[in-house]
């Protein structure tokens, strides 16, 4: 399948990045080009603005009631760093424990190998359809496409994923993947694609949710194979964890005879006790709830309860290349809460699709280029104003701005030829790496706003050196105040 794709230069220490030609880590367009389309879509921006504001406020409220949040955050960060320092040993222990409890562990070097393993496992059961719990790792490797290519029908069961799947669309947010669709659009998708749906279906959210319940119920009850991801895998006990809200996860983890879980190797945690930290950090940061409705954990196979066949697929797909990057490695600490998306002024305007990868927002701007090699996602490290809001909210304190700067430097270094773009990028990188210069450039770009007179984008109006870059890639019209200023103002008034 990938034989025609040219091999690419391995990055750090010769470790291979995620292969080309498979999966969803690379967009068809650069970030600025894709963002330009999104910026012209007023409805999309209104939906996104509403969503990010709502979740941001909910998060702030439930985080605010935890007196020891900073201690939990520091513990989460230290736990992840300690895990990465001995990742090989923790994975071997996880494998031992899962195997001892009746599970089977598979290792996948990359997306192609993981897809082959899962396809083989599904085919061995003789079933022609699988139910799936929302999982970033399986989206990353485009598992659905691989299964469908051999005629296996895949049912996404998370409501938002179902909307995305039925609408032949792409997810745009980690937590609420269909946030770019409004209720009327969802009703239209359901009316068109769900067989036997009530023609009187309205666009009331409860009615739409119940239509999805009815549609999926019989599939859950007849499913023989389920596929999930995992939020955490506990090495010392072999316990896997899925955190969810709707109960579709429980259906998949409980009813079918066979369960196949695809887990990125960075999701291992050393001890059961470590979950006392992550199960506090994740729900509050993610949905802004004290606890999500359902968390399921299981260790191998339990006679008489749940699937009697369990497979765990451990996925690399560029993660070891990220681990080799001493600055970038922190990106592997991410617990996929999506808090950084909801505070990011760039995400809020550009939307998730502009990032071209299943990982959007600030985490996507570092993780995607780290997984693919920066040459394949060269514009993403610039998709940020380095305002630092993502770092502030990150429950495991990933220093996203520093990694962005690091990747910018790496990208510029990698450009051997002195093209006009390379020069402009280099100048941009210099400005963006220095808070004082960046501040000045941002204020200068406000001048650009006056010049643009309400045009949606701003082709040539930025001062040098940024103009060298924006000439070929329209930059969004800058807001009336910079995000840093706005943030400072809002925070001051909140106190």
């Amino acid at each position, binding site marked *: 399948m990938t034989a025609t794709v040219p091999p690419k230069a391995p990055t750090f*220490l*010769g470790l291979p990045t995620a292969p080309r030609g498979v999966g969803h880590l690379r967009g068809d367009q650069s970030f600025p080009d894709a963002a330009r389309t999104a910026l012209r879509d007023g409805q999309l921006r209104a939906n996104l603005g*509403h969503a990010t504001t709502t979740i941001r406020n909910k998060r702030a409220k439930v985080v605010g009631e935890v007196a*020891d949040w900073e*201690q939990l955050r*520091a*513990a989460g960060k*230290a*736990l992840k760093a*300690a895990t990465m*320092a001995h*990742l*090989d040993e923790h*994975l*071997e222990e996880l494998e031992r424990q899962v195997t001892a409890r009746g599970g089977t562990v598979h*290792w996948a*070097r990359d997306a192609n190998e993981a897809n082959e393993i899962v396809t083989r496992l599904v085919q061995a059961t003789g079933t022609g359809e699988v139910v799936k719990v929302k999982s970033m790792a399986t989206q990353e490797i485009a598992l659905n496409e691989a299964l469908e290519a051999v005629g296996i029908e895949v049912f996404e069961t*998370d*409501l*938002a994923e179902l909307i995305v799947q039925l609408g032949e669309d792409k997810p745009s947010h980690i937590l*609420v*993947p*269909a*946030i770019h669709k*409004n209720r009327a659009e*969802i009703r239209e998708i359901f009316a068109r694609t769900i067989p036997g749906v009530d023609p009187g279906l309205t666009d009331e*959210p409860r009615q739409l*949710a119940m239509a*999805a*319940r009815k549609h999926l119920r019989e599939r*859950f009850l007849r499913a023989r194979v389920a596929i999930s991801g995992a939020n955490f895998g*506990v090495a010392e*006990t072999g316990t896997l964890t899925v955190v969810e*809200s*709707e*109960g*579709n996860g*429980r*259906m998949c983890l409980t*009813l079918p005879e066979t369960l196949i879980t695809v887990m990125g190797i960075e999701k291992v945690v050393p001890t*059961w*006790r470590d979950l*006392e*930290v992550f*199960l506090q950090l994740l729900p509050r940061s993610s949905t802004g709830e004290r*606890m999500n409705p*359902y*968390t*399921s954990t*299981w*260790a191998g196979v*339990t006679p*008489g*309860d*749940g699937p009697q066949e369990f497979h765990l697929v*451990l996925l*690399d797909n560029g993660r070891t*290349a990220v*681990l*080799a990057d001493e600055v970038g490695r922190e990106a592997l600490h991410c617990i996929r809460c999506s808090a950084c998306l909801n505070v990011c002024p760039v995400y809020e305007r550009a939307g998730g699709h502009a990032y071209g990868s299943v990982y959007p927002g600030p985490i996507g701007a570092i993780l995607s280029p780290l997984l693919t090699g920066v040459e394949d996602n060269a514009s993403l490290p610039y998709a940020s104003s380095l305002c630092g809001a993502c770092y502030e909210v990150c429950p495991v304190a990933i220093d996203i701005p520093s990694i962005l700067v690091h990747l910018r430097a790496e990208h510029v270094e990698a450009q051997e030829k002195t093209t006009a773009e390379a020069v402009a990028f280099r100048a941009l990188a210099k400005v963006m790496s220095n808070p004082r210069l960046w501040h000045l450039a941002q204020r200068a770009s406000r001048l650009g706003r006056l010049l643009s007179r309400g045009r949606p984008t701003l082709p040539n109006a930025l001062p040098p050196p940024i103009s060298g870059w924006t000439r070929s890639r329209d930059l969004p019209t800058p807001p009336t105040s910079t995000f840093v200023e706005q943030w400072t103002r809002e925070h001051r008034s909140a106190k």
Partner: protein
Amino acid sequence: MSAREEVLGRIRTALGATRAAVPDVVRDYRQAGEHPATGPELLDLLVDRVEDYRATVLRCAPAEVGATVRAALDQGLGAGWAAADVVVAPGLPADWRPEGCDVDDDRPPVQLADRSASVTAVAVAIAETGTLVLDGSPDCGRRALSLLPDCLVCVVTADQVVGGVPEGIGRLDPLRPLTMVSGPSATSDIELQRVEGVHGPRTLLVVLAA
């Protein structure tokens, strides 16, 4: 080389011969809640947090559990429910069970979808987050039991209530299949409007015996 050896080898290469020192994990976050065990403040906190998820809590004396479970079913199913529509965990104490109810056995799990309500005990309840944890022991039942019927009644006793997440995790056995339940199943996927009950039980009732 097998994929296993190769991935492990890559990790070793990535980390280098001299690995970075493992940072100390300082666990100076709260290990326990503020309220004394089984005390009224702790139980009130649990009730407050569970109700915040729009679940219903019925409180009763330990001797009144059976009658209170019936009252909970009246609320969840409407008066006049048939005992045969209610399925209970096999290890549920006899005096907690509605008379004539169905007791779960080793039938295929999907058959539980035919029942309107299920009744189980819990292993632990975490007050600060309003979380009930079922651990697959005989009084909690297998996982499908608390999943398929549309109305779930859970009985919590005062000694099972802990303050925060660390105490809860400490009491649980990670080798058992665990289900942590915080309110009824819910989605906010459509314009962020919360809708209770997608695939899991749409109604959650908690009987708190103290």
